[in-house]
């Protein structure tokens, strides 16, 4: 497999290795390139007890037992024997009605929780009739303009019974407000709600790019949500701190972990800087990692993540509650490992990634659709993703015991190595002034872009093998863009018009005076530095649209434009 990829990838040396071209030439010079993991950790032909630092006693200290510090072996004592992971396929398209139908479809097939994908206008705070929005309404997720839409999204679903994940960031406080109003209409109190709001704005600047406001006010809004939730939403995760998108954008497993921890530190410092006690909010922090195809490296990364967070939470933030130092995470399979060529191969790739997430101890999992290279998943593809999870859970026996790979000389060595290297990445970010400052200077963005280019060239030049792409290519597959014989998802083109009509009707029906008063209060709270959540809930309840609420923040905070990557 990709064996040349850098002995040199130790984070300390990364600065000298910044030009991809130099890397390539170096690897060409060595006749017999070293065997490494995907992120460049050297791999020996065989591992023995001698490779485990500190012997059995040292290892026992680094592992603990499942559910006990330092949580290397998992956050809970009985792991999947006690409770399976949550099967949570990311879903959303069209308007609330279409997505509601997809939710019912998934739950009827045994999915155990929901995960909402929002369209780009909703992610960026434009109503569906905004001139920048019209072409994008309902394409990559569901269009939500008002709390009424949010209520429709969950029609026939009890919000005190189903856990819901929201992939929303720049407009996360606004979307949470509409959700609280939708719950209120069902008679469900905030205290009963379970689920997760992504609300990790730093990774938007890093990789996902759905930012709206500059980093400073963005951090304030994210922290407002966490602070509000610490008070009002005891069972809800108000943030999911993630390296997934940086990984998908190009970086390696070590950088993914280091960048995630750098973000976590930044949020925790923002919150403790407000005078909030760490143990007050930390137990509800959640995390999100990618699980890609280098099976053992991914498992080791997930185990290392728990141990690294334990160290940070206890040593840096003085966690007294063990739950504050117990990392829980959602794993998404990697879309970038999937190929447009021979798309059925993606079923196999996704299955291996699902297995990696389980062996790494994930609390919830999304398995990519095999058609994801072409479109958002068809009903058939998403069903197969869910079945993949169910087969791994029920037919393979991997759930019978906690952390089954503990004690493997190779996995333990890799876990130690990834932790050490991720700590070095974290130090590098902190030396650059911390996560926010490093992002403003474009440092991690450059790592990501260069790594993405290197990976693409490794495939083009045959150093990284992809079945169906650069090896075992079938001649009669046709040109790129030739679609395979499978049913692809198609969006109803009338969705945008329907959504716009519905929103206009709702605006006409609301009490204009109430709504204007609520928007004025939101302006005041945004300007005067108060937590914006109470005013947002009031505005959502009064029928304010997502665009109107976001416009208040645009006026108060301004908008961000990314500096050139070069």
């Amino acid at each position, binding site marked *: 497999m990709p064996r040349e990829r850098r002995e040199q990838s130790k984070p300390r040396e990364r600065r000298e290795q910044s030009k991809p071209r130099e890397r390539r030439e170096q690897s060409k010079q060595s006749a017999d390139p070293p065997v490494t993991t995907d992120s460049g950790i050297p791999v020996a032909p065989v591992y023995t007890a001698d490779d485990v630092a500190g012997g059995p006693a040292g290892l026992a200290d680094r592992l603990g037992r499942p559910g006990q510090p330092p949580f290397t072996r998992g956050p809970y004592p009985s792991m999947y024997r006690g409770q399976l992971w949550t099967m949570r396929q990311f879903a959303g398209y069209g308007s609330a009605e279409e997505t509601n139908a997809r939710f019912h479809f998934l739950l009827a097939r045994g999915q155990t929780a929901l995960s909402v994908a929002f369209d780009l206008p909703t992610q960026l705070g434009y109503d569906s009739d905004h001139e920048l929005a019209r072409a994008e309404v309902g394409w990559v997720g569901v269009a939500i303009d008002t709390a009424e839409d949010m209520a429709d999204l969950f029609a026939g679903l009890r919000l005190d019974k189903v856990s819901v994940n929201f992939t929303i960031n720049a407009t996360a406080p606004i979307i949470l407000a509409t959700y609280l109003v939708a719950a209120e209409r069902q008679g469900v109190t905030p205290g009963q709600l379970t689920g997760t709001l992504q609300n990790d704005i730093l990774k938007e600047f890093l990789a996902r790019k759905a930012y709206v406001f500059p980093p400073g006010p963005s951090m304030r809004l994210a922290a407002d949500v966490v602070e509000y939730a610490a008070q009002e939403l005891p069972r809800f995760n108000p943030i999911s701190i993630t390296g997934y998108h940086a990984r998908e954008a190009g970086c390696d497993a070590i950088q993914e972990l280091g960048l995630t921890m750098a973000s976590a530190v930044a949020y925790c410092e923002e919150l403790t800087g407000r005078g909030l006690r760490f143990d007050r909010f930390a137990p509800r922090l959640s995390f999100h990692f990618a699980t890609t195809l280098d099976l053992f490296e991914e498992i080791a990364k997930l185990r290392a993540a728990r141990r690294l967070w334990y160290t940070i939470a206890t040593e840096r933030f003085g966690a007294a509650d063990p739950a504050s130092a117990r990392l829980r995470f959602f794993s998404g399979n990697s879309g970038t490992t999937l190929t447009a*060529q021979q798309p059925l191969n993606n079923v196999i790739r996704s299955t291996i990634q699902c297995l990696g997430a389980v062996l790494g101890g994930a609390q919830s999992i999304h398995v990519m659709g095999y058609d994801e290279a072409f479109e958002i998943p068809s009903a058939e593809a998403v069903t197969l993703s869910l079945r993949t999870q169910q087969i791994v859970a029920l037919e393979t026996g991997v759930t019978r015991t906690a952390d089954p790979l503990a004690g493997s000389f190779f996995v333990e060595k890799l876990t130690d190595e990834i932790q050490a290297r991720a700590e070095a990445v974290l130090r590098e970010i902190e030396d650059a002034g911390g996560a926010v400052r490093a992002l403003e200077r474009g440092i991690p963005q450059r790592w990501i872009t260069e790594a993405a280019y290197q990976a693409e060239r490794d495939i083009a030049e045959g150093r990284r093998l992809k079945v169906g792409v650069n090896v075992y290519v079938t001649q009669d597959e046709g040109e790129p863009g030739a679609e395979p014989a499978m049913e692809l998802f198609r969006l109803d083109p009338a969705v945008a018009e329907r959504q716009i009509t519905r929103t206009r009707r709702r605006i006409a029906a609301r009490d204009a005076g109430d709504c204007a008063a609520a928007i004025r209060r939101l302006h005041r709270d945004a300007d005067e530095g108060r937590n914006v959540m109470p005013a947002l809930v009031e505005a959502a309840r009064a029928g304010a649209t997502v665009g109107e609420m976001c416009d208040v923040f645009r006026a108060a905070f301004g908008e961000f*434009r990314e500096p050139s990557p070069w």
Partner: protein
Amino acid sequence: MLLAKPGLDGHDRGIKVVAMALRDAGAEVIYLGLRVTAGQIAAAAVAEDADIIGISSLSGAHLPITEQLLAAMGGAGLGAPLVIGGTIPVEDVALLRQLGVAAVFPVGTPLPRVVEGVLRVARCGTAA
């Protein structure tokens, strides 16, 4: 060469990789970044005297975005060809060509073929 991401889509891994590969192939590449409007792209192409304009779209909104951009390019009197890459279904490739797009690089196109194709269009104005 002028590259840009119009629309609201933030998936910029692909266009940045293509920009770097074109640069390594000897082209002078200007990347305008995310969420640029058709008007901004056309104005920049005039200001920079671009030989070719390349855009990327992964959100599904490539048809209206392309129509808007071609109209803006026409309005600005630009003769430079337009190429597009991204998550583009096969039936839309022909539609885009009919609209006047010089070359389409759908998902799965190997990087060297994108580079060759863009360079050929820049030289000859057509992918053929």
